[in-house]
């Protein structure tokens, strides 16, 4: 059997997860409440995950860096209230990041700015495999702008499901809802996204 790059990556991640046994990470999380070095280690372990999630929500590096900063300051202030294991910590981190992104997008002005920034980054993305670069970048942008046009709760479930590749049960844990609710939200979110994309396509010259 030939392993794909994605499968290889997942296997590697699993090995890394095993190497960093839960017990060690649980201890690290506890120590991070009062120990700067432990907190720094925890931060370094999770920075990339949080930053990528913010990029996938905001489509703009500057905004993603700002919100990532906000996330880790929130973590630092509230880590002593976290009572769980390392897996729960990852979910807790996603929850904080989701709230921080949604707070960032709360104002209409900020949202418009984010859409504008996404448009400015038009041309920076990579192409799909089967169409011309220009066409695919345009499509990429259209999807991002349509996503930003959705309510944050819909954008959140789409991002977690399709960009973070999470299962419904994981998304439910992060958002503190049951999986059936998430399934319904996801269906609605996809339907609304499709409508947004169709409306945008109609407006095209």
């Amino acid at each position, binding site marked *: 059997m030939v392993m794909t790059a994605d499968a290889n990556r997942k296997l590697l991640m699993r090995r890394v997860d095993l190497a960093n046994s839960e017990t060690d990470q649980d201890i690290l999380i506890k120590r991070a409440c009062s120990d700067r070095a432990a907190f720094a280690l925890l931060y370094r372990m999770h920075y990339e995950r949080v930053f990528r999630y913010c990029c*996938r929500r905001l489509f703009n590096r500057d905004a993603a860096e700002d919100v990532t*900063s906000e996330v880790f300051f929130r973590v630092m*202030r509230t880590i002593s209230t976290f009572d769980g294991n390392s897996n729960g910590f990852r979910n807790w981190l996603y929850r904080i990041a989701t709230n921080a992104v949604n707070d960032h997008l709360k104002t209409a002005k900020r949202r418009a700015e984010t859409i504008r920034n996404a448009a400015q980054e038009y041309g920076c993305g990579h192409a799909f495999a089967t169409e011309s670069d220009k066409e695919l970048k345009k499509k990429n942008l259209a999807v991002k702008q349509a996503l930003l046009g959705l309510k944050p709760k819909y954008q959140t479930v789409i991002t977690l499901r399709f960009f973070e590749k999470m299962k419904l049960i994981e998304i439910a844990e992060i958002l503190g809802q049951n999986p059936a609710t998430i399934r319904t939200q996801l269906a609605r979110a996809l339907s609304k996204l499709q409508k947004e994309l169709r409306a945008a396509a109609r407006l095209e010259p």
Partner: protein
Amino acid sequence: MNDNKENIEQVLEGVTFDEAPDRGHQDLLEQKLLLNFNAARSGHNAKRRIIMNNKMAKLAAAAVILIGLFVGFEILSGTSSVSWAQVRQQVAAVKAVMYKAKINATENGQPFQVQIEAILADEHGTRMDAYMGEQLLERSFTLEDKKTHIIIMPAQKKYIEVELTEENRIENGDPKLIVEAFLKGDYKELGRREINGVTVEGIQSSDVSPTAGFPGGAGLIKGLKELSGKVTASLWVDVATGWPVEITLDITDENGGEQVTIVVSDFQWDAQINPATFASVIPEDYELMYKVNAENLEEGNQLVEGLKYFAQINDGKYPAKLSVRDVVVEIGDIYKAKSGNLQIDDAQVSTLKYGAQYFGTLQAEGKDPVYNGQKVTAADSDKVLVRWKLDRDQYRVIFGDLRIEDVSTGRLAELEAE
């Protein structure tokens, strides 16, 4: 419907992102977090972005240093039961005082607090410890005998040494001179209230002019004054003993956007000072970050070094304005514009800050200084970048290529006409 669903899912799976993390941002954020770690842990409202962008903290600390010298707050007259003349006499006779101060400020809507613990002793000098939460940000000493001002930065394990001139050595910590600085101010009586069970009587002044007393710090004070559109100072004195109990200072910028509130309290007048407090000022493993030399400042070399660094990191352009506040802001902007890919040299930034501070001193001293950073670049070798008056007929000029020359008033007029 299913086709549609599959189609949209395919579209989403094809979306790509520019999401490779920037190591510079990661490192910078880590530093910010760790610097604020103790404050956050101790339950203080951790004030992010403040330490890194700490011009407000610096200004606030400078304000407290001034406040430390407010002990000579002068009262011209009054009809209350407190004998203000007696307050003045008592304070002027004090040999040593300890106090604590809390500085609350906001920047970009984010509140933060710095605490100061200060010791002023005629015999030893002045020591100020500035904390955010439990984190020691900075410890500064002014040593009377060595005529030096030392700023110790534990986070970097470095220190800055400022050589005091005879003039500012005398000014530093001398309450009589500070009293004179406040003599011109008007005040209104605030009546009585209680502070921690002590009956106090207060006065308020909106005419405070804190321009003296900080060693070599007129430029820094100027930075503070630029920040402050309005200053309201209050002094509360124990009715029974005549000793000051609390001093507050509210500083609001011209737009009302940024505010600094300083409360100085916990005074211990004529306290017994342990000499060990001033011993081993510089820890053994600390490195000298920069030495500020009065001669270098006056010659203009300090300014030249700082401007040279700025032009290096800013494509040959000099700062648009020459004040501590402005150069710090501009360096921050350059750093941001270069997406964090610029390695900031703290020592060089300090050089520029002290140079800018000195330029502020020249303004305060009426030396007719002019700075043309918006018009003159490193390529303009014959244009006047900075100039100030040395005496009646002579000016010191720093040209665009950072050459220093002393020229006559007539020659300066020609150069500036060109």
